């Protein structure tokens, strides 16, 4: 009775496999349902930088370094301030001495004296991690040491990071660096220890001019959400498709 035994084994195997398959695996999710199941439905952190208000004092950079224990004199920083001076000949003069940690106290840019009557535009641009919705840095991590939290912040697992540096290369905004003490990838965390306690980030608190704001995109009454919804804001390098969540007021195309 060999043929019937073979048939029995085949049927039993197929039946067993079918029974092992959970029903949920066969369920079709609508795109809306799939989207709603992603992340936290109450909080999505976002940042607004008002370049019109920034005066380049650099107190944000100082506060960030001390709050987050980034070695103060090492040439690395989680946030920095860039100075742009545009002259009549159309040239851009850009610098960020020590990341703007000690502010901008001299009109000289890279030892170059720029005459005041040659300047057409001048402004300061604070930069920090964009906490992208589609972070390229997370995609390239080979060990799962960097990730996106449910409320949209990209963090690094210091005990899991092998220090390969792929993420530092992948970030289009250059916000990541190698931590000289922990020997792991390091980046702005939106002061996760502060925002999760209801505080503002160290840089937001330190800014005397209100040039930096952090808020919850999923709260329609949040001032930051209102700015993003009602004012003309722009993000850096939107062409990369990373969907950055740091929005700039007073954006200039020369800012990259």
């Amino acid at each position, binding site marked *: 009775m060999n043929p019937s035994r073979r048939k029995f084994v085949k049927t039993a195997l197929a039946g067993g496999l079918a029974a092992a398959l959970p029903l949920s695996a066969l369920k079709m999710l609508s795109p809306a349902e799939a989207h709603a199941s*992603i*992340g936290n439905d109450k909080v999505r952190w976002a940042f607004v930088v008002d370049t*019109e*208000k*920034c*005066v*380049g*004092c*650099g*107190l944000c950079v*100082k*506060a960030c370094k*001390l*709050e*987050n224990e980034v070695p103060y004199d090492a040439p690395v920083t989680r946030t920095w301030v860039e100075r742009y*001076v545009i002259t009549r000949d159309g040239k851009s003069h850009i610098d960020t001495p020590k990341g703007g940690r*000690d*502010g*901008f*106290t*001299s*009109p000289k840019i890279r030892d170059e004296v720029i005459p*005041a009557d040659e*300047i057409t*535009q*001048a*402004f*300061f641009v604070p930069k920090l991690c964009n906490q992208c919705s*589609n*972070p390229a840095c*997370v*995609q390239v991590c080979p060990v*799962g*040491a*960097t*990730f*996106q*939290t*449910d409320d949209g912040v990209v*963090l*690094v*697992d*210091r*005990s*899991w990071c092998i220090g390969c540096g792929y993420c530092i290369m992948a970030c289009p905004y250059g916000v990541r660096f190698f931590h000289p003490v922990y020997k792991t990838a390091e980046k702005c*965390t939106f002061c*996760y*220890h*502060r925002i*999760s*306690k209801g*505080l503002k980030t*160290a840089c937001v*608190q*330190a800014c*005397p*001019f209100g040039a930096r704001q952090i808020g919850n995109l999923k709260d329609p009454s949040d001032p930051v959400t209102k700015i993003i919804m009602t004012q003309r804001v722009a993000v850096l390098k939107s062409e990369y498709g990373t969907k950055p969540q740091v929005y700039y007021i007073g954006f200039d195309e020369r800012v990259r």
Partner: protein
Amino acid sequence: MKNHAWRPFLVAGGAVALLLTVRANVVPSDFGVNGRNFTYGFYRKGAIAYWKAVKVKYRGREYCQDCHEDKEKAIMASPHKIIQCENCHGPAIDHPDNPPKLTIDRSRGLCLRCHALLPYPGTNRASIPGIDPDEHNPRQACVDCHNPHHPNLEDMK
């Protein structure tokens, strides 16, 4: 099959078993797809607790004003009210327990962050009174003459 043919299979099976045992012990139990998907949410859940546990060092004006009410009143009546205490006095951390005394930054450089004159008419820097640090009493501390809590020129020391 002869006995010797089974040996490589046993060795391979042993290697797989060893790998699985090591993996089960080394990879933390909370490691896996914890977020939105494998691409962005493949991580160790304990890492979130690590970042939440970082010590808050900048406590904000509200923390200072409970004890230093007079200083807070003075600064709030001046144009310097927009500056947080800790921007000049340093992070409070657990003051007065730790550190018992804060180190005040009385350097020229601190004032020059905003008050060094830069010829940038389009920025708010232009609306802040500014000096040329090389011309205006060079190498003298600003606080020798100006009181940062009463910065108006009538209240100069």
